[in-house]
């Protein structure tokens, strides 16, 4: 943590940490504390007076079907995004791992979606699936399948998941490929001598050895689906139709900025914070220790 050899006490280190600490206090700590405080308040419709109500906002949230639905929707949305982007990336990485020399070329061709902003990713997919003009919806129509995500919640969810998955494949591919390439070749050779074919080698040797990466990616993907997909949803569905693609982060935004329900929005923020803290703790405690060979 601290260097064995270090500088003696002076005012300098305080000056060095000051910018970061100041920003942290003003823009992170204070607002977070505010969110916690406000989550205990109810404001009247005009924002003129507020009343301290302890946990009422939270009780209200968890008694609210819309919120509970959003909660579960967020859960399966993240699992869908994490599951599909992880499995597609794993599959592609396994393929790339067998074409040693060309692997880096494919990496270049596959990693760029990482750099595309979520809202742009959403726009790309929105355009392809536009009910009147989209190329895919047109093709689907030719096969007799009517696509209109503006009306059908299932299709809207599918579209959002696709866009979110598309963007995340590159990241997962990169880490899977790096993990696979660091599996010692001698292990695979030994297994080949023992008579294991390529597929068997993958499932019995490569896949178990990259478990730490898989778990790490799982956490990252869930965090991604929870928070970074805001732009996708905002661009593609705006949470609709009828709230059927609204996830927690999106709801905080709409309740706070459009619905102007300060207490409720703050309580939602606090719940989100708790989720992030939980995930971070899991990431740092459980994963780093248990899944390490």
């Amino acid at each position: 943590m601290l260097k064995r050899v270090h500088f003696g006490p002076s005012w300098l280190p305080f000056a060095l940490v000051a910018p970061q600490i100041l920003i942290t206090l003003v823009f992170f700590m204070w607002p977070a504390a505010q969110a916690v405080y406000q989550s205990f308040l109810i404001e009247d419709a005009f924002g003129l007076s507020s009343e301290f109500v302890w946990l009422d906002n939270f009780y209200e949230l968890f008694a609210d079907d819309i919120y509970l639905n959003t909660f579960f929707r967020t859960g399966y949305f993240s699992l869908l995004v994490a599951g599909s982007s992880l499995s597609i990336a794993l599959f592609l990485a396994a393929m790339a791992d067998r074409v040693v020399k060309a692997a880096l070329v494919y990496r270049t061709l596959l990693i760029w979606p990482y750099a595309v902003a979520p809202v742009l990713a959403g726009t790309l997919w929105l355009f392809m699936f536009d009910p009147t003009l989209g190329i895919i919806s047109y093709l689907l129509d030719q096969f007799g399948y009517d696509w209109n995500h503006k009306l059908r919640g299932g299709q809207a969810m599918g579209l959002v998941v696709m866009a979110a998955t598309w963007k995340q494949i590159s990241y997962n591919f990169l880490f899977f490929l790096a993990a696979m390439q660091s599996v010692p070749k001698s292990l695979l050779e030994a297994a080949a001598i023992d008579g294991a074919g390529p597929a068997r080698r993958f499932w019995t040797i490569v896949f178990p050895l990259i478990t730490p990466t898989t778990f790490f990616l799982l956490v990252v993907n869930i965090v991604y689906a929870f928070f970074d997909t805001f732009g996708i949803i905002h661009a593609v569905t705006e949470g609709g139709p009828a709230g059927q693609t609204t996830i927690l982060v999106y709801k905080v935004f709409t309740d706070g900025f459009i619905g102007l329900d300060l207490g409720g929005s703050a309580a939602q923020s606090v719940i989100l914070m708790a989720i992030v803290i939980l995930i971070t703790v899991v990431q740092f405690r459980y994963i780093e220790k248990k899944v390490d060979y």
Partner: protein
Amino acid sequence: MIENRPIVSIVSHIVLIIGVLIVGFPVWITFVAASHDALRMTQAPIPLWPGPYFFDNLKDALFVGLGGSGSQSAGLMLFNSFVMAMVIALGKISVSLLSAFAIVYFKFPFRMGFFWMIFLTLMLPVEVRILPTFEVVANLGMLNSFSGLTLPLIASATATFMFRQTFLTVPDELLEAARIDGAGPMRFFFDILLPMSRTNIAALFVILFIYGWNQYLWPLLITTDQSMVTIVMGIKEMLEAGESLQQWNRIMMTTLLAMLPPVLVVVGMQKLFVKGLTETEK
């Protein structure tokens, strides 16, 4: 591979090429859409092959925008995005370098307290504290300004951790040698530590530039003034502007322009990008 079975490689190549094509398809469609005129883009099915209007659309997007009231040209939005991305990336790197230096190389009161405080920012992404942070920024009078756009995003636990990690691998003897050579703390920082960390700084810069460029929710809240719109949020405004009749050719051209800088950075500086991604996850 271990066996020399060409069929296995061929299958792998085919699968990968299909994968690359599927991943690339949305962008191809975007490019095609950006090369046709507005009329063609109102007729289904939309074309799959580029048309002749790419440069006309480029010119219009860059200098005119959608043409309606309150819409900005892509040129200005690109500039705003660039400034925001640069300030966020360089700002995060600077404050993180300085605090990592203090935490690793100095013994001072509240050292660990500061460390944990920075650590906590990891758990407070902007999405979970939007409303109160917005209030703070509004109270400080920083709405519609670059400082309001960037400052609340500049604290960075990951960057601080990464530099801390880097500094911890610097041998103690280098500091001792520098002290014998007569270098004080800041001289040591600038002459020895900074140059030694430059690949890490560059790698981090690539990641943070993309992070900054792609900011969406925060600029959406902070900027109401049209002159402060960034290109990433400009797209959304364009989508909203033409509710009934979209000018898809211009929108897709602007989308291309918005994607291009970060994509070029990733592809062009792939080594640094990969290093940045993997190092920050340690």
